[in-house]
């Protein structure tokens, strides 16, 4: 499947990654090559094969629904690029 620059722009928008116009052209070629190569999987008949969900057969463990950690607001905020009092600061979202 060939990917054009509009498709690159659309995926980049979905992924929230700014991609310059020049990069869009380069990426269109690279992604087309990679996706073209990936498409060889189409040769395989996978009818009736279960998609893998877990590589090692394990039952997910359960634990009592109790608080085991917390009270670390300051530690959570400490790595934020901008934080004030008890909040992360972001550009204005609601007018």
């Amino acid at each position, binding site marked *: 499947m060939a*990917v054009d620059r509009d*498709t*690159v722009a659309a*995926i*980049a*928008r*979905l*992924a*929230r*990654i*700014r*991609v310059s116009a020049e990069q869009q052209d380069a*990426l269109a070629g*690279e*992604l087309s*090559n*990679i*996706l073209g*190569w*990936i*498409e*060889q*999987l*189409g040769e*395989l008949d*996978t009818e009736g*094969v*279960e*998609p*893998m*969900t*877990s*590589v*090692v057969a*394990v039952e*997910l*463990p359960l*634990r009592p629904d109790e608080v085991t950690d917390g009270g*670390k607001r300051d*530690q*959570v905020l*400490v*790595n*934020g*690029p*901008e934080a004030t009092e008890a909040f*992360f600061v*972001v*550009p*204005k*979202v609601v007018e």
Partner: protein
Amino acid sequence: MSELTSLGLAEARDLLADGKATAKELTEAHVAALETVRPLNAMITETPELALAMAEASDKRRAAGAAGIMDGLPIAMKDLFCTEGVLTTAGSHILDGFIPPYESTVSGNLWKAGAVMLGKANMDEFAMGSSNMTSYYGPVESPWRRPGDNRPLVPGGSSGGSAALVAARAALAATGTDTGGSIRQPAAFCGIVGLKPTYGRCSRWGVVAFASSLDQAGPLTRSVRDAALMLRAMAGYDPKDSTSVDRPVPDYEQALTGDVRGLKVGIPKEYRLDGMPPEIETLWQQGIAWLKDAGAEIRDISLPHTHYALPTYYIVAPAEASSNLARYDGVKFGLREEGADLTEMYEATRGEGFGAEVKRRVLIGTYVLSAGYYDAYYNKARRVRTLILNDFVEAFREVDTVLTPTAPFDAFPIGEKMDDPLAMYLNDVFTVPASLAGLPGISLPAGLSGNGLPLGLQLIGRAFDEETVLRTAEVLERAAAFDALPPVLA
């Protein structure tokens, strides 16, 4: 190279236990060694003061009779493991200034066993790469050179800094992580041992996530015994990682009996690639002969879906990466680039903070997960992954371990293959199948290429049968008697 830095991990342990050196002396020797190999760019953050403090604490523990299994042994930590109070970058610009307020379970296990941290090792950005060229902190140079050719070579990747430091004798051992070959391939390129354990053997908690269904931590060391020792310290059940498996951690060194008589070793015909250098095939045949001489039974086997492993991996891993890397948004940690509104801030931050290979993979992942393509790509890949696992399940009815080359070529000069992602992906053609199947795999140095560079052999085992893999690897290690040293030594 001083006497103390030329030791193996287990040898150094024995030396400390016998009172012939102190953890402080051993650590000082390695701190000095690190300074001499700085031109390799193998460390992102050196932590000499912390190392010496940990070493002094270790000597006190030993004096009090409370030494752990790795007490006083200085190691490098791949910069993908969160370390409390120490910058953790994942080789990415987007994690600028991130100082974790918590410790990853695996690194915590190592400190509990008494190990000493020398610093945080350079790596491909978010562990995406096979050359260590994608690091925001610059490429790592391998301590190896082609004789008569001074061009710097790649150490492999993504655990390239870890492998270079261990090969150059600047760390006794190092941690790595392996998603599609990121421990085994750099180990092969640098002439050391690299072990990827079974998926679930080591906790992933606190390890910066790349592809969660594949990522697994493991040791890079200079011998099979050292790998056995270090895995024991790293492994174990962790309630904080629901995919870590609750089964006892054996003393892996006990498995190193030197006896492989009657062991059935599978040779998969699909690992013979068109255009593969003849020396890779020759090395493989040599490995077969060594095991046969040691009394193992060699069986030709088929893993029929091998050819499809790499394209499957390049759907599954980017899909998971695109999801995992959504957390880097300029809000909670790391880099922020300003934008007029929230979406622009996200786009600017991620556009600036991610390197070219990471962007490529996040975009591929976003594409294969997007509406209309999810079934055709992602679900298809998950189905093929089941077929690849089934191949191994069938094979392991007949054999106890599988022997293959680790990589289809030796180390290449820094800068090569960067303009062709598909050529770069081929580095992992022999390591990706075991990753997709979650199986343990080890690479050990088995000979030199025509270029005078290390080549590795890989052994793959049944799930949670690291012991057979290690036992067989140690027999091969003795037969190969690999003792070549890189020209750059601390």
